[in-house]
């Protein structure tokens, strides 16, 4: 039973299209994230939600819009796709508050979604 699942795993699309990547976690975590891994493998945080509230919103184009319908889901919608958006997008989750919080923010990652914009 996958802890953090992302769909789709691969996405090939044309410039200018709009696409979404979905993420679901079954760990009962209260915080979810989107990270972008570029072609040089550098991982950079994009967004983070804690209990459906946006808490990290790094400098990304406003074509990227996260949506968290509930604690277990965090989706990423991208409008007007550009060549430079080609990357692997990772969803992750962690438990930051509550009785299980140890002070260490240990992230569990999904398998990643490779987006290719042609």
């Amino acid at each position, binding site marked *: 039973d996958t802890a953090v699942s992302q769909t789709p795993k691969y996405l090939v699309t044309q410039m200018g299209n709009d696409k979404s990547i979905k993420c679901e976690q079954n760990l009962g975590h209260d*915080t979810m*994230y989107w990270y972008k891994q570029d072609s*040089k*493998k*550098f*991982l*950079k*945080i994009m967004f*983070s939600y*804690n209990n459906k509230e946006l*808490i*990290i919103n790094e400098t990304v184009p406003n074509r990227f819009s996260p949506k968290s319908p509930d604690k277990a889901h965090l989706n990423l919608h991208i409008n007007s796709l550009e060549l430079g958006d080609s990357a*692997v997008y*990772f969803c*992750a989750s962690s438990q*930051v508050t509550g009785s299980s919080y140890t*002070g*260490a*923010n*240990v*992230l*569990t*990652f999904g*398998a*990643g979604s*490779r987006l290719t914009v042609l």
Partner: protein
Amino acid sequence: AQTVTQSQPEMSVQEAETVTLSCTYDTSESNYYLFWYKQPPSRQMILVIRQEAYKQQNATENRFSVNFQKAAKSFSLKISDSQLGDTAMYFCAYSGAGSYQLTFGKGTKLSVIP
């Protein structure tokens, strides 16, 4: 802002040998956590080991151990008895205590040679 530096873009090691991956970080916080994540060719990010800054004892997980030098802000990963399955990108990461933010280094690509 915290930064994490991995100065070795690529390394290789013979199977069954020992290899050490370097990581340095910069922070003004007194309490924080350090992590090593592994990313094999399957792309999955896997937590290898973590260290709490206030603990002087170096963390160990089976064949993986760290050398944490707080004053030098150094956090190296030692892999003993390297196995072919250890071939992967290894990322060092930093998180302040109670922080939502996890900052990654640029990674070291490790190849284990049979």
